């Protein structure tokens, strides 16, 4: 990387402080990064909105409870204007935060669990298992979520039926969650696998194995704690991707009209011809929310990745 002599000089000089800095934790370094902090602040706002939408704008309006004129521009009654059914855009957008972010969160959990398990097993067990798992992950790496969803989502909906419910969540949303989760774990698996490979070489695994621990125990007790940092950073980045993907899927008509996410609102806006009518207020609120959430999660994720991922150094 840098020139040998200089690297020697600086490495020698900083050796003493290394331990201290690690002990001080990544928190300080994360806080020192302005972009990550801004992202984090935006996130907090959205999390609060998503947690308590009723508190801010009352219950979700539908055709019967809508009070405004159809497609009215912003005024004092409706600060964000109304949609073609006269519903308040403010009300819709705030409620959509909950739906978009819940889908994103659930999809992220599936993605991360599958990715972490595949990554750890693949890296730790190695051999044929590794080869097969990595081939499969290559497949999912090449065929992106939205393309796979084109075929998976309608089939799954037909199999379980669009109006079914599971744990009180409508099946359309669940299908989106499962499709995103099952198709986007490959990146996480790759990142974690490479970290596990280098961990495996370290002494403590050998020692644990010598005293008779099984591979499951080693993976759970010795490998997992060492990749938790990586998993956190990956989870944040995955969440950004999941919200992005959900928006796209809902926009092309795979969403649930009765549970509007931001993408679903944009789908409705497109169907109502909002761009051609110049109804910018129908488009701007959900669009700005998507961009803000994806952007802030990306910023936080990159900052975390820089701080927590030993391999990423100056990446991105």
């Amino acid at each position, binding site marked *: *990387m840098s020139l040998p002599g200089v690297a020697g000089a600086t490495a020698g000089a900083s050796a003493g402080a290394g331990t201290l800095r690690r002990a001080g934790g990544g928190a300080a370094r994360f806080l020192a990064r302005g972009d990550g902090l801004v992202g984090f602040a935006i996130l907090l706002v959205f999390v609060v909105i998503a947690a308590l939408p009723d508190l801010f704008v009352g219950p979700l309006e539908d055709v019967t409870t809508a009070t405004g004129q159809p497609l009215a521009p912003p005024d004092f009654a409706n600060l964000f204007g109304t949609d073609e059914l006269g519903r308040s855009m403010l009300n819709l957008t705030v409620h959509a935060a909950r739906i978009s972010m819940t889908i994103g969160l659930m999809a992220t959990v599936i993605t991360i669990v599958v990715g972490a398990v595949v990554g750890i097993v693949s890296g730790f067990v190695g051999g044929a298992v590794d080869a097969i798992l990595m081939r499969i992950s290559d497949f999912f790496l*090449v065929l992106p979520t*939205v393309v796979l969803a084109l075929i998976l989502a309608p089939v799954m909906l037909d199999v379980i039926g669009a109006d079914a419910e599971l744990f009180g969540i409508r099946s359309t949303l669940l299908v989106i969650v499962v499709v995103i989760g099952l198709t986007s774990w490959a990146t996480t698996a790759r990142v974690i696998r490479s970290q596990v490979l280098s961990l495996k070489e370290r002494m403590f695994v050998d020692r644990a194995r010598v005293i008779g621990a099984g591979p499951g125990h080693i993976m759970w007790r010795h490998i997992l704690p060492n990749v938790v940092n990586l998993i956190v950073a990956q989870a944040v980045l995955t969440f950004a991707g999941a919200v992005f993907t959900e928006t796209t899927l809902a*926009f*092309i008509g795979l969403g649930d009209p009765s549970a509007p996410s931001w993408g679903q609102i944009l789908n409705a806006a497109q169907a109502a011809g909002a761009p051609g009518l*110049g109804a910018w207020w129908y488009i701007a609120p959900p669009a700005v929310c998507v961009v803000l959430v994806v952007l802030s999660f990306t910023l936080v994720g990159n900052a975390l990745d820089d701080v927590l991922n030993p391999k990423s150094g100056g*990446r*991105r």
Partner: protein
Amino acid sequence: MSSRYVVNKLAFAVFTIVATVLLMFILFRMMPGSPDRATKNPNMTQAQQAALREKWGLDKPLFPDQLVSYVGATVTGDLGYSYKYRAQPVTEVIGGALWPTVLLLGLGELIAMVLGLALGAVSGWRRGSPVDRLGNGISLVLYAMPYFVIGMPLIMLFATALHLLPTSGMSTPGAPSDLLTTLGDVGAHLILPLTAVSLGLIGGYSILMRSSIIETRAEDYITTARAKGLRDRRILWTHAFPNALLPMVTWIAISFGYVIAGAITLEIVFNWPGIGTLTVEALDARDYPLLQGIFLLLAISVVVANLIADLVYGLLDPRVRA
């Protein structure tokens, strides 16, 4: 490029496509009522349906007969008949929508590669400068925007508000059909969707090129180039850029799948008569033969894009070429 490298990459491409076909087979046999449904095309006569049942061996066991006939038909390009488009063969329906998408995506990729890679390179080379802050900021925002979110304001600004450009479709109905007018007309319709595709791509390309350049900048051979007393600009474009480009080749291919997804949404916004619009029609009508066909096309394009990227990488990097 060693033949071993090429064979490896080819093998993976074939593996992916085979896996895709198998996945489709399993999915469509999983559905309730399937596979009968595939043959109960409302636009077909009883005789045609019976012929189809016969052809796909639907009265025979799932494995191996149905699988064999399914794979056989798929390999020979027989993707069945669309429901929505009155029993037209799927290949024909898709063929008609292919070129508008190729035109839009091809030009968009081209523009984005030139501008995005250049922007990222300059941004990374001058890390921390005002150019970098602005360029990287814009790129991050663009990267966070779904393509249709880029497209919608473009329509509202240039078409709805300023009446400068057409809002939808690929040509004006009833316009004179001489070559020059047609080209101009298509060109005018192309400007906005093309701008949206390019902007969407530029963000990602520039962010990754920036980080690639930042990594390359720390390499010893860049110090060598500085020691040679070369101009900064020459070091960037003749020493750093070709090296920083290498990881980008793979990334551009991997992102191709996402680009297709984004393009689908843009075609809806601009009513562009391509694969994206067709996809949504097929989704709405649950036209499964057509969906299958589109999915297969997208899968093959993505796989081929990756294969091409691997081969281009081999050509660009002498270490692989040897």
